[in-house]
């Protein structure tokens, strides 16, 4: 299958390893991955901060860029959620009915990585090997906007050598929330502290998630505390094999 990768602005600029890992997994499964160079950002940051007018050209751009593809994958539950639930809202708000139809059609073919693997490609075992103690944080937007359910966990459970440990209070927000982390920095930090405490209590070496943004927040906090636990994106675990090490 030919799959277009929407890396997201954050992965493109800050976490290219997550994008590469996504490519690796899909290629290993025998699929062709393309990276449309016109892609930039889904516009979620603009919408969520109160700037829908600025998001409108980004919404249009996403449709323009990804319309030609039958399947689009993104290693971000949050961006996939924005594409599915905000793009049409924004287009509608500015009265662009033709755009509403287009973004809805593209959104229907846009998947978060675990959705694409489990629902579209029908695999849970992607042939990965990752001999580490890992705990999984189900990020809010993956969980509640996208409703990815246990798909990421099913993929993780099939990973060879992994020691998957349950995270207490897993469904509680880590405190990132986009510009919330800046505008309400102190409340965000208090939420992060509790999340880090929960992660540490599991004794995991790695905390995994499906969103680079939340991992940046959690990882930034843990790095500051030097607690020795690191963050890893689901795609990176799924891309790991025995040979690669």
């Amino acid at each position, binding site marked *: 299958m030919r799959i277009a990768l929407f890396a997201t602005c954050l992965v493109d600029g800050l976490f290219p390893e997550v994008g590469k890992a996504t*490519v690796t997994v899909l290629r290993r499964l025998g699929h062709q991955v393309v990276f449309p160079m016109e892609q930039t*950002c889904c516009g979620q940051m603009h919408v969520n901060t109160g700037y829908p007018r600025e998001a409108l050209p980004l919404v249009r751009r996403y449709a323009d860029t990804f319309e030609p593809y039958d399947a689009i994958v993104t290693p971000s539950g949050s961006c996939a959620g924005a594409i599915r639930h905000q793009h049409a809202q924004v287009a509608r708000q500015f009265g662009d009915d033709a755009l509403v139809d287009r973004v809805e059609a593209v959104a229907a073919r846009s998947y978060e990585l675990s959705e694409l693997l489990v629902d579209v490609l029908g695999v849970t075992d992607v042939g990965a090997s990752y001999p580490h103690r890992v705990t999984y944080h189900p990020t*809010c937007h993956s969980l509640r906007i996208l409703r990815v359910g246990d798909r990421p966990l099913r993929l993780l459970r099939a990973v060879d050598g992994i020691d998957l440990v349950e995270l207490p209070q897993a469904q509680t927000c880590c*405190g990132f929330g986009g510009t919330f982390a800046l505008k*309400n920095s*102190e409340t965000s930090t208090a939420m992060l502290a509790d999340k880090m405490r929960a992660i540490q209590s599991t004794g995991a070496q790695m905390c995994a998630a499906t969103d680079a943004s939340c991992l940046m927040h959690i990882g930034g*906090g843990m790095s500051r505390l030097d607690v020795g636990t690191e963050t890893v994106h689901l795609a990176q675990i799924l891309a790991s094999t025995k040979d690669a090490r």
Partner: protein
Amino acid sequence: MTTFLGMPTASPTVHLRTGESFPDAARTGLADSQQRHNLRVATTTIREKRAGVVAELDDWEQLRAAGAAIKDATLAELPDHLERFEAAVTERGGTVHWARDGDEANAIVTRLIQATGETDVVKVKSMATEEIGLNEALATAGITATETDLAELIVQLGDDRPSHILVPAIHRNRSEIRDIFRDHMDDVDPGLTNDPEALAGAARLYLRRRFLSAKVAISGANFGVAETGTLCVLESEGNGRMCLTLPRTLITVMGIEKLVPTWRDLEVFLQLLPRSSTGERMNPYTSMWTGATEGQDFHVVLLDNGRTATLADPHGRSALRCIRCSACLNVCPVYERAGGHAYGSVYPGPIGAVLSPQLTGVKDNPSLPFASSLCGACYDVCPVAIDIPTMLVHLRAEVVAAKREEHRVPTAEAASMTAAAWTMTSRRRWTAALRSLSLGRVARRMPALPPPLSSWARSRDLPQMPRETLRDWWVREGSDVPPAAPEEDA
């Protein structure tokens, strides 16, 4: 009446807003480790209880949808329902008063009490009277109002503000309550312990004297039934029932959105509310009254206070579905850390973050729509399915638009948002921007970063900057894959 609904002239009163912004007000709550502990224990307990009783019903989602649909349908024809309600109450010997805002409502209630010649009244816990600051207004008129709900009484005696819709003293633990009782209750046992039974006993004694002497009571209402003019109050302690039955004059203050069309509709809400609020299958004390009973004088004050304006906003309207169950507060991670006082309104938590600015207008509460990480937990538990996150996002846009109108020069945030959008709408500009970022090599723990990075770096390291962006890697490495479609090379 219809003209009134279309013309809210006065502005809502003070208990819906604060001068302080949420981030500033939150600081106090965040620093209060005792309060944070109290909140965590209380919300966790009630959250689990709620989840348990909700899981028992296999038609919960249908009930939720029914609750939302009934409320929406009622709101769509609110003027008609209000007229029917007024006619029904009047026919049964009650008197209906209309109040555009808190000041008008307070004046009406004060006048009604003064007409009885009484100076002491008892109160059933009510958010509407909290919202309009009735107790304070009565105090200036020389009338003492005693709260009879235990938690509300604790707040009142402690000269405190409520921090939760349902459990106003949720931020207090038993020892703190014992201290408040000991210091503020006349003839309390000085050896009072913090044993729950002892505390309840002290409150019972204190309140009993007031129940038996009160000639006037004030209540709110959880629901009003348009077809019969019936009012309905749900409570857990039975103290409300004492207020509703013993005094000779009963004055009910009710927001205009509290109506349901028929008796039948109540059934849905009497299932939704107790499970969502206290985690109980059925409410312990449900009182209903229709018009005036013999020997009793009954008044109902219908309060607008910003509700008509909220109704007129297609994005904000659904906030009026709220049945004040407080489930959204109990699951909110922001509420749990910052505490209820941080919201500066009698409506704290997620619903407060939308309802308060809806009622006052965003200019008066500009920081509240941002007091959320948009995690969505509130939407999931709301028994009337209010999509709070989406409403917050709409309100944020209103705040930004209002700021734009106010200032000729764009704010720093607006300027950076415009710049980001400009960069992100061109492949060339975006590629260049990402490259400069990866070459930038900002130190991960740099002490003095410019905003907004400074507020990030106060508690979090920045990520390690990669040497190469993904797109540059793709151009270098991606070429070994089968030929790309022409549009990728554009």
